[in-house]
């Protein structure tokens, strides 16, 4: 049974083939019919399948390398010799082997889709009546099989380098970030989040069907929409019920996990020179033009966020809306209302004249690995807070999927840059031309403040507006911030309009 795996002849005219990608690594158990590698010849790629059972002992041709037809590309040893009998069912192996394959197909799939894969697979197998799954001989696995298989999946799940950097969005959920600063989730939870998502094997095998978990109807629907298994969600409701809030928390943790890993800026090497990406060049040119041509001035205000925090929490607890309202959504709504009273901040200096835009289209700066994108929420003046939340989350989710349409990135009349997630005290942003102003939003922090003559600990947030002095003067900026402050400190007003 020991054998050599050779470069297959996929065509009469094929002389050599290239390994695009190994789907197995040394130590992996393979069965007849399992996918081993993707092989490319000409403009066709083909999955090479194993003709026998065994354990891969060595890979001789690395990814990206070519070899003539018939060349040995890997070695296979018989199963029995190196492994002990184990009693695990064979399902995990099957899953582990196929999961990375499917997930790999498209590297910019949105998280919801990735999370849904297990159930999707289940469906497919049902459709096929199991015809696609080959019978697997025996239950033989190396003793260390499980952990290795999991490690393989983990590493498949690190597509940062593979991601198309320019478009894959990393600030995937800016709005969810301030909550991190107030209550950072324990480290352990964070690392457990991705596991929950990619642990398709054991847990799934014995998972209870969804209806066996106690969950509110809203939670059930949210889980279904996001394609997650309720088994992964930690219940906090009465009688161990899973609430919508638990589902949202779970999703947020996953997002956060993505973000933590992805938002890391591209690493540099000391003493090297890099060509700038197109996106970097664009940012360089636009930001330089902005600072060169626009006379910026900056005004800062401290905003008491106590009530806004309370509002957010009570909305979450009441599960009134399908979409959780985030701090970013609250700031967007408050800005839209404040801008309605100060139209000159919703304007552009163009052709030596002033254009005051008919709609309030707020751009949200979203960090991506090598730069940033600013998707635009249109006609914010017409949108209620939940509508803003829905639209904003959709845009942000889209960022992680890696692609915006022209309409989604253009036509902004005002920009919000939120660095709350980075815990910053205070910062000022560069105006996004030809807009009149940009609002820099910092972290919500506990600070001492004076309320009715008493020093108390409150939750406050610094905001700084950068304005084009050709269009407005300090007094407009100051009044705008006063207005913004009024809305944010009396957030019930945000729900009324």
């Amino acid at each position, binding site marked *: 049974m020991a054998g050599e795996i050779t470069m297959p002849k996929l065509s009469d*005219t094929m002389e050599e083939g290239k390994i695009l990608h190994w789907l197995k690594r040394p130590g992996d158990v393979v069965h007849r019919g399992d996918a081993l590698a993707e092989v490319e010849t000409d403009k066709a790629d083909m999955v090479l399948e194993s003709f026998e059972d065994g354990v891969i002992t060595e890979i001789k041709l690395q990814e990206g390398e070519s070899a003539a037809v018939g060349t040995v590309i890997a070695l296979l040893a018989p199963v029995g010799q190196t492994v002990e009998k184990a009693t695990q069912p064979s399902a995990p192996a099957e899953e582990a082997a196929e999961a990375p394959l499917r997930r790999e197909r498209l590297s910019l799939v949105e998280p919801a889709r990735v999370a849904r894969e297990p159930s999707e697979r289940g469906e497919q197998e049902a459709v096929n009546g199991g015809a696609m799954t080959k019978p697997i001989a025996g239950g033989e696995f190396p003793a260390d099989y499980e952990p290795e298989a999991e490690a393989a999946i983990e590493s498949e799940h690190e597509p940062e380098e593979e991601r198309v950097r320019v478009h894959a969005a990393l600030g995937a959920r800016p709005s969810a970030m301030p909550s991190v600063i107030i209550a950072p989730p324990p480290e352990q939870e964070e690392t457990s989040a991705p596991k929950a998502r990619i642990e398709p094997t054991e847990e799934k095998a014995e998972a209870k069907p969804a209806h066996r978990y106690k969950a509110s109807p809203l939670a059930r629907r949210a889980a279904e929409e996001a394609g997650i298994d309720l088994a992964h969600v930690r219940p906090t409701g009465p009688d161990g019920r899973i609430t919508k809030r638990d589902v949202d928390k779970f999703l947020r943790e996953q997002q956060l996990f993505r973000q933590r890993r992805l938002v890391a800026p591209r690493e540099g090497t000391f003493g090297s020179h890099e060509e700038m990406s197109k996106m970097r060049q664009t940012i360089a040119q636009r930001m330089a033009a902005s600072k060169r041509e626009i006379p910026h001035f900056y005004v800062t205000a401290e905003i008491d966020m106590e009530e806004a925090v309370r509002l957010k929490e009570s909305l979450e607890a009441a599960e009134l809306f399908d979409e959780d309202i985030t701090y970013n959504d609250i700031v967007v709504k408050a800005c839209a209302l404040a801008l309605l009273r100060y139209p000159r901040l919703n304007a552009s200096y163009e052709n030596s004249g002033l254009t005051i835009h008919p709609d309030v289209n707020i751009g949200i700066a979203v960090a991506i690995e090598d730069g940033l994108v600013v998707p635009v929420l249109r006609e914010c003046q017409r949108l209620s807070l939940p509508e803003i939340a829905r639209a904003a989350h959709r845009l942000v989710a889209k960022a992680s999927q890696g692609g915006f349409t022209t309409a989604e990135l253009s036509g902004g009349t005002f920009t919000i840059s939120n660095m709350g997630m980075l815990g910053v005290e205070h910062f000022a942003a560069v105006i996004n031309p030809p807009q009149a102003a940009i609002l820099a939003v910092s972290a919500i922090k506990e600070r001492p403040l004076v309320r009715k003559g008493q020093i108390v600990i409150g939750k406050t947030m610094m905001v700084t507006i950068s304005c084009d002095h050709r269009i407005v003067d300090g007094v407009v900026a100051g009044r705008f911030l006063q207005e913004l402050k009024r809305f944010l400190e009396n957030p019930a007003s945000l729900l009324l309009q």
Partner: protein
Amino acid sequence: MTSMVLSAGFVGLVDYPVALALQERLLDLRFADAVSDTLLLLEHPHVFTLGRGASEDGILEVLPGVSVYRVSRGGQATYHGPGQLIGYPIIKLEGQARDVHAYLRSLERVIIGALQDHSVQAQRRAGLTGVWVGERKIASIGVGIRRWITMHGFAVNVSNDLRFFSSIVPCGISGCPMTSVAAEGGRAALTEPFSLTVSAHFARAFGYDAVGPLDATVRRLLEEESSRAWQATAAMPPGASSTRAAADPKGMARRP
């Protein structure tokens, strides 16, 4: 290959990830003989795709409104967009037909034949997969084969805006000039009529007795995958701009 009807049809504009998911499901169904050989014909919204291992430098410029995906296929950067006819054959290769290169050459013949019907004289070029009019590339081919069932396929430039190609290094050939049926003065340079010609030539080249309409299963799966993708991106409030609205080449004019 006995009673041979090719299930083929043009399904309009389909997002790249939706079409990919659809192909994968069809591939499994085809393997289980739950559907017949299928030729999916469609268009994609603006999208750049990169093969596995392809350098990101293949994309010279990121355009607003153009999504970018890295796909597990070989090959370099590719552009797809409205006006380009995409063909995804999901067919089982059997016996003599199990020859990857022969399959690629057959696809080239299908496209050359269809172009001829639309008054465009095109050729193969030795060593370069694809279809060419002189030095200009009119169709690209890139296929995947799983368990001897085909996926991915070909893209023929019919009436698409060729300027988008200038933002990538198409198929790794720098400065490769592109052309289209419309640019070559071909007849009926529209994707849907062109798709009919392609189906006919495809059926002839691969020895089918007839071309039938798309299997109902295929339509159902397409609906399913589309609504799944739609749900994933959540509903937009009324009046908000739709994704499709951006398929307007003005994006080009707004290039920074």
